[in-house]
């Protein structure tokens, strides 16, 4: 009986000491980190297109950080963005709802432009230049392909064209071997 008492007391004391040490350590070694929504925002492509259902990338990041939104809503970000957000949040990857399209940029058919400035006001990254009663044109280098300028245009003179592929930006695809494709298949099957 005595032995039982001693055993219980000694283990209990040890547990108490360990708990105190842990509590002190969590205070002393505490690291200030970025707020979660900042980290998520850094992973998003900043297209500001609204396809996720939120008015911009920062609101979506806030929603994901707050647990209100799922990780697979960003369409332009594609699979890579979804995987990195899932990794950051520590959740299982989830398949994207829509396939991301080919990268596109807006193009104004200047002959038809009436100079109304509605598209300029709509562009979330100020990628369209022009002035009232002057032609408007898209600065291709800054266009994120968000498509928000198409609707406001009263004469429907904006097209979305495929982003031109540059020779300098070409990179080797995966080898055309069975084993290389196996890895791709397995990754996709994990989050179906």
């Amino acid at each position, binding site marked *: 009986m005595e032995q039982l008492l001693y055993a219980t007391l000694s283990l209990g004391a040890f547990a108490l000491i360990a708990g105190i040490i842990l509590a002190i350590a969590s205070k002393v070694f505490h690291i200030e980190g970025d707020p979660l929504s900042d980290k998520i925002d850094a992973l998003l492509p900043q297209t500001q297109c609204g396809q996720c259902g939120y008015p911009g990338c920062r609101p979506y990041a806030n929603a994901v950080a707050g647990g209100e939104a799922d990780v697979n809503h960003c369409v332009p970000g594609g699979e890579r963005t979804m995987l990195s957000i899932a990794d950051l949040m520590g959740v299982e990857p989830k398949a994207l709802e829509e396939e991301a399209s080919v990268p596109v940029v807006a193009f104004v058919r200047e002959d038809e432009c009436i100079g109304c400035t509605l598209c300029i006001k709509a562009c979330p990254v100020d990628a369209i230049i022009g002035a009232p009663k002057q032609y408007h044109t898209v600065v291709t280098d800054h266009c994120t392909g968000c498509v928000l300028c198409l609707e406001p245009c009263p004469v429907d003179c904006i097209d979305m064209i495929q982003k031109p592929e540059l*020779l300098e930006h*070409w*990179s080797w695809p995966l080898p055309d*071997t069975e084993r290389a494709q196996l890895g791709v298949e397995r990754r996709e099957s994990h989050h179906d």
Partner: protein
Amino acid sequence: MIKSFLNKLGFASAPFAGGVTPDMCKWTEDSAIEDCPLPPLFIVPIKQHIGQACTPLVQVGDLVLRGQKIAKSEGYLSVPIHAPTSGRVLKIEEHAIPHPSGMGLTSIFIEPDGKDERDSSLTPMNNWQDADPAELRERVRICGIAGLGGAAFPTFIKLLKDKRHPIETVILNGVECEPFLTNDHRLMVENSAEILHGLHIIMHMVGAKKAIIAIEDNKKDSLLAMQKVLDLADSDAISVASLPTRYPQGSEKQLIESLTGKQVPAGKLPMHVGVLCQNIGTTKAIYDAIIFGHAITDRIITISGDAVPKPANMRVRLGTPMRFIYAQRGLEKFDNIQLLHGGPMMGERMRHPDIPVVKSSTGLLAINNERMKAAHQVEDPCIRCGHCSEVCPVSLVPNLLADHCRNDQLEKAADYNLFDCIECGACSYVCPSHIPLVHYFRYGKGQAAQVRREQSFAEVSRLRSEGRDIRLQREKDEKAAKRRKVRDTLRSESVLNPENDKKTETTSNTEGKK
């Protein structure tokens, strides 16, 4: 200690790590350089070097002379392009170039007039010893010279005389470690005096006191030829070093390690260890540019391979279509044949022969399908034998690195030194499981570059978006402030003059409608 003692004696006995010894197949090593005739049409791409593409200076219908500048350089990392012969500009449009993507580039099409007249606007600089190195360097630049060993880096940038990093030793890279290729070999045998002269010019330009001409020991006649002209010149500063034949001895970093025992620190250049490497062909081109005022219009190419009936080394004008060159050597039907641009270890496959040669074309090989398929067999799982790590000249662990690249684990791949890989191909060469290791590394590097590009674009977009939000907010605040100010002014006026109440009300209504 023994190594450094031997080094002092002049024996290049400090080998680099790893390396392989494939069958060298130097079938053209005794073939004297032949001149390739002019083709009926020249196709000159506007980018034949590392850096920014040039912009065409000529228009359709213009008449040009051989060596005349037809495209000017853009930006610092660029060299101009010159016409390979005299003739008429036929058209300027996109055409296939020697690039693994198969994509095309704007090219200037020139129809030769057969007279092959030279542009003589650049004067020979026979007294180059008295000339300012900066002047000589400018001459090298405007003659369009880029590294002819295959990398095509603008040469004038390497010839900079930087006070912070003085060049002590110039190394002439006559190693030519790729199988089949023999252009530098023949140049050294046939033009040894010009090459030595070019070396002197280079040493003057960078202010180097010492030079080493590095040659692999399988090129006995080149060693003899270069030693002979050296003995005639009686120069203590220059020596010929014979190196054991091993691939990739000719890689710049490995060559420096073998000759000086020093390693170029990661992320740095050879000039940071006081060394400048220059290819033999480039040296001859520098000689031509300074002594004769000739812009670069041709280069030596080895045409070889088991599908070529008459392998040879030829002096080919830049812009000559490959089909024409192969025909010169008896190859006209391209069924069941694979075409390689460069050597078999680092060269790229060309999908068809209707591609022009450019400054980086060191070799044109034609290999039968069977032999090619033997080198690209089914990929088996990695058995972790470690042969790849043994032969890697950079001391990487290729099999683990390829796993990370294949699985898109780009941070892990960077931790395993993906960006130190020189893509020499020694690892894939020895792999018993036939894993295309270099292909995985290239894929990984491409993905990493793409991610970096997307991230910087996203960052810029985010800043623009935030800037726009700030601007809109500012405009809103300014409007609100203005409205408040007007309201306050009106309110204060009505306090002082109560009879003007009706008047102020009408005025404030009109204000509100604005």
